[in-house]
């Protein structure tokens, strides 16, 4: 602005003091001096700025011609019509508003200018004119007008209804939308006074709304009410009525407000409300404890159940900080580290869902579920945690699992069948015991196990008992898959439903094969013991007469020898004295000799006595053998002369073999004593000899004889007993089973099937020895019993 000034200043024909020019230039309005012809004599910067001209382009020029040459529409503006010019001419003061001036660039602009004559005139300058550019004011007004129009348009088009009313509720202004909203036209509303507004408010809302309306005017409290109002067609709508304040206009209080139709929102709200209520109810009625925590660790929601489960105090529940609650809950958990780690992990991995079980210190089991809370746009809000008390379920599960494990792993066989007897379940012991897999037997009848040794009555009794709903106990002889016989003690229980109908049968069975075998062996041992005791008693009874029978026979033998010698002497003497003996005496003697058959007596008496002595000796031996065989005195391991023991056994068993076989002994005479249970070993040898005899009996014809060889020998650290027969040998098919308990090839009543099983028990289990056989079909069999020599000693000495 200083530039034009500096340019114009030298060319100015008026001279001002510089201070005056500075003051002029600081004036906002354009100022210029005007001479009597209407020409500019000076001007300030503001005028230059308003008009766009330089100072020298204005000064000396006719202002009308320069700035006011045309009307705003472009038509020429004659000076005679111009009030400014007319005032100059009349040398009058003039205030001119509403004229437009033209800028140098051809733009016209509204001005307000003022002309004031100077008294007296200052040189040529007769007037001072000021110009005010009204462009901005005009523009503002235009904007205002536009905005007013826009506002009206908005009012007309917006869904809300704007209103102005006085304190009585009389409508002073209402926007046109009211018709769409309430059905009444503006004129109807104005005409009705307050009736068509306050009068249509729902009775239930009326009091509240009028109180608020009153407060708006009396207390300047903002109005913000939702209420129901009746439309012209009689339907009810929900409106939201708001007014911030009341103001005074023309001495009266007025209020401007907006009325919105919120019926839809209200409906949605109601819906939401019921939904929320439903959710709330659900949340609080759920058996799960629920907790929603936002990403900042703030509790968004926690239900009552949560408080119950963890026994959380109301204060803690109310606290928004989840950290405090977590700190508390942690103290209740049995494995807090695990839980904390999980929580930490999940907050670090917001997308993950997790579920697991946790145990509280008080024994409660919780099923914990956690998932992120994400809206449909994928925005993560936080995480929901639910905790369900599964203690009972867990206990039941545990119990059930325990029970099922107990059944499955039970040391007894468990079989469950349907009422028809078809197997529906077998446990592991069953499969171990029978050799059948569960798949093989499920659906079939337990009779697949029957060995055919039990009488039909047994099964009949079983079925009639259990079908009457009673429990049956008994023992079966069954067959394993591989054909082995085994014994079971079974308890079969019908399982009934609450109505009493049988739904299943439960069989609990114990393999008692070994027990039966042991019982058998025990019975055998007891029998043997009895025999042993009896033998000892009988031995005494027999030994005593044997003593005197033998003594007497010895005496008779010695006496006969003496008598015979004496007799011979008599006979010799008689022969010598024959010459002197009377013939009748000789004849009588001869007759007497012939009568008693003296020759026979002489030859037979010593033999008779010797044979009797032999017989008595044999009786003594048998008694001793019997006693030694049964060994009633020894229940301990004893160093035993096996040859002697076996010899006794052969003597005792003589009746078993003497008709079918000759028996040869092949004893190693230098056999050392073997530490063993002599009674048991005797029993083993007896069984082997009896079996050998039976094997031969099967083969030989009546009258023929086979051969049994019983031998002993030492083989390293073992002493072996060998029993060989010339029978038929053992068929290949049964070779693997001969030592099994209850396995027998003999007819019922002929054998217990325990002889070799017992031998096995005695030799292997009691003595740590070995028993085996070599056999050839048609040729015979040799059984070997190997007993360790000095077993006890070597164990000790080591």
């Amino acid at each position, binding site marked *: 602005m200083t530039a034009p000034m500096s340019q114009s200043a030298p060319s100015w024909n008026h001279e001002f003091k510089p201070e005056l020019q500075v003051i002029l230039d600081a004036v906002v309005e354009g100022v210029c001096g005007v001479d009597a012809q209407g020409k500019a004599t000076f001007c300030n910067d503001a005028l230059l700025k308003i008009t766009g001209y330089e100072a020298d382009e204005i000064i000396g020029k006719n202002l009308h011609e320069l700035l006011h040459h045309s009307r705003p529409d472009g038509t020429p503006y004659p000076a005679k019509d111009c009030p400014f010019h007319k005032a100059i001419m009349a040398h009058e003061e003039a205030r001119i508003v509403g004229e437009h001036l033209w800028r140098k660039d051809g733009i016209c602009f509204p001005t307000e200018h003022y002309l004031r004559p100077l008294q007296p005139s200052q040189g040529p300058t007769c007037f001072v004119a000021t110009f005010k550019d009204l462009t901005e004011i005009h523009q503002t007004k235009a904007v205002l007008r536009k905005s007013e129009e826009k506002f009206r348009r908005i009012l007309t088009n917006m869904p809300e209804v704007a209103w102005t009313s006085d304190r009585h509720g009389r409508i002073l202004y209402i926007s046109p939308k009211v018709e769409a909203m309430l059905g009444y036209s503006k004129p109807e509303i104005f005409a009705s006074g307050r009736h068509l507004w306050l009068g249509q408010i729902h009775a239930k809302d009326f009091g509240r709304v009028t109180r608020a309306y009153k407060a708006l005017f009396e207390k300047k409290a903002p109005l913000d009410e939702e209420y129901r109002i009746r439309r012209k067609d009689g339907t009810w709508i929900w409106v939201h009525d708001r007014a911030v304040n009341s103001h005074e206009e023309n001495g009266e209080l007025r209020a401007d407000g907006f009325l919105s139709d919120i019926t839809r929102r209200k409906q949605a709200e109601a819906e939401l409300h019921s939904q929320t209520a439903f959710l709330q109810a659900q949340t609080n009625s759920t058996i799960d404890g629920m907790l929603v925590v936002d990403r900042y660790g703030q509790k968004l929601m926690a239900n009552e159940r949560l408080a119950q489960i963890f026994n959380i105090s109301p204060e803690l529940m109310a606290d928004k900080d989840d950290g405090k609650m977590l700190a508390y809950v942690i103290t209740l958990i049995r494995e807090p580290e695990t839980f904390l780690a999980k929580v930490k992990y999940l907050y670090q991995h917001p997308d993950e869902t997790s579920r697991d079980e946790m145990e509280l210190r008080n024994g409660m089991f919780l099923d914990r579920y956690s998932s992120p809370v994400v809206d449909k746009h994928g925005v993560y809000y936080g995480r929901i945690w639910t905790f369900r008390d599964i203690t009972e379920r867990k206990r039941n599960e545990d119990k059930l699992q325990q029970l099922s494990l107990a059944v499955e792993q039970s040391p007894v066989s468990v079989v469950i069948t349907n009422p028809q007897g078809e197997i529906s379940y077998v446990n592991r012991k069953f499969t171990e015991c029978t050799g059948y897999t569960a798949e093989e037997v499920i659906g079939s009848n337990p009779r697949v196990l029957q060995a055919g040794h039990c009488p039909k009555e047994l099964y009949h009794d079983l079925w009639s008992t259990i079908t009457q709903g009673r429990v049956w106990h008994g023992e079966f002889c069954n067959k394993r898959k591989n054909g082995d016989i085994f014994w079971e003690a079974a308890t079969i229980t019908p399982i009934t439903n609450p109505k009493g109908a049988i739904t299943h049968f439960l069989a609990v069975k114990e393999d008692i094969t070994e027990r039966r075998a042991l019982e058998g062996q025990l019975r055998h041992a007891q029998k043997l013991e009895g025999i042993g005791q009896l033998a000892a008693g009988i031995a005494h009874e027999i030994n005593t007469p044997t003593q*005197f029978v033998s003594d007497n026979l010895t005496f008779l033998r010695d006496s006969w020898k003496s008598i015979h010698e004496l007799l011979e002497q008599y006979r010799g003497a008689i022969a010598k004295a024959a010459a002197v003996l009377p013939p009748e005496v000789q004849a009588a003697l001869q007759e007497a000799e012939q009568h008693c058959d003296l020759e026979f007596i002489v030859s037979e008496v010593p033999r008779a006595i010797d044979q009797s002595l032999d017989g008595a000796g044999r009786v003594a031996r048998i008694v001793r053998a019997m006693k030694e065989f049964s060994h009633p005195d020894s229940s301990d391991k004893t160093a035993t002369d096996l040859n002697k023991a076996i010899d006794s056994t052969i003597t005792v068993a003589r009746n078993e073999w003497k008709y079918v076989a000759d028996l040869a002994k092949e004893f190693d005479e230098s056999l050392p004593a073997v530490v063993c249970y002599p009674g048991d070993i005797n029993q083993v040898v007896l069984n082997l000899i009896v079996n050998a005899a039976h094997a031969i009996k099967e083969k030989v014809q009546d009258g023929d004889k086979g051969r049994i060889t019983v031998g002993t020998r030492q083989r390293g650290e073992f002493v072996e007993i060998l029993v060989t027969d010339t029978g038929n040998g053992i068929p290949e098919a049964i070779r693997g089973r001969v030592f099994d308990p209850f396995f027998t090839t003999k007819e019922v009543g002929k054998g217990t099937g325990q002889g070799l099983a017992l031998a096995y028990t005695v030799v292997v289990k009691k003595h740590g020895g070995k028993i085996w056989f070599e056999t050839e079909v048609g040729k015979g069999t040799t059984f070997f019993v190997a007993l360790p020599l000095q077993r006890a000693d070597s164990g000790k000495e080591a």
Partner: protein
Amino acid sequence: MPKRLLFVDDEPNVLDGLRRSLHGMRKDWEMHFVGGAAAALQALEQAPYDAVVSDMRMPVMDGAELLDQVKQGYPDMVRLILSGQSSREAVYRSIAPAHQYLSKPCDPRELVARLSQAFAMRDLLSNQTLKTVISRLRSIPSLPTLYEELTASLRKEDPSLSQIAKIISKDVGMAAKILQLANSAFVGASGRVSSLVQGLSLIGTETVRTLVLSVHVFSQFDGKSHLAAILPAIWDHSVAVSSLAQRIAVCENSSKAMAEESFTAGLLHDVGKVVLLAEMPREYQAIFEQGSGSIQDRERERLGCTHAEIGAYLMSIWGIPLPLVHAVAFHHHPSEAAETHFSPLTAVHVADAIASASDGLALNHDIEMDMSYLDSLGLREREAVWRGLYTAPAAPQKDLGLSAKV
């Protein structure tokens, strides 16, 4: 003078049978037969007897009780049981009162042999007091250390036979007792037993345990005895002789049985000394500590007999097999046994002579090798070989535990 024998049995037929079958002994034996214990005791009151042979099971008073009374009233008699019952209980009950237990039916020859053997040894013993002492003797005391070792072994869960045999093979008293039991009717009459291992096997470890721990068939010297210091030396000597005798027998190609017999005989050869030490310790101590001449001379001088005869008599009435009795009886003067072949007696005599020569204890040093006896057997040149078999004990085992306790 014939021996007087009393037979007791409630079965007259048995008595008749014995009377008849033993009729052949009528020249040597004067036999009386009574039907019960009461009659037996009555007969004993009226006249002295040398031996009594009784049945076990009898009414009113059984054989064990009878023999117990006989032992009290007539302690020098030889007491035998002849019973048809051979249960262990009966045997246990008779161990204390009876010297031997024979089971029916018993061959008369066996009976005669056993009794004759006892009588023969009895005749060698002139000292009546000693006869009584020996007949009354229930057991020969053992060395306390060995006794404790044995009882400790037997108290174990499953005592080993060989371990027990090892201990018993070192003790004179135990060995003698085991042989007595093994030769009774424990295991039937299948010959006489001279081997300790065989005897123990026949009896069985379990029975040995019962006998030792419950029946107390063994006894031991009093550890506080003034003899305590010398006992181990005597034991060492017995063990040394037994071991050498066995080696000599083996060296002479004897049977295994004879080798074992020699071992046992060696162990038992001085059993008389042990009896004397146990039964008359002061007298016997005086004998071996005072006077001059060999021990057996001093014994004969003071007792009228030697430890050899004393031991032999005890062994004979205990039913120990004759070869062992002979070895004990004649180990100083083997010629008197009138044997013509190498026998356990030979082995023991030689072993004793060799071992004694190097023994420091005077009590053990009592014998000279009988060279004329060896000449009679044609074995003189073997002497050097046998001496070579001897290995002197490395150090006198005087610390077997006893001396330490004194």
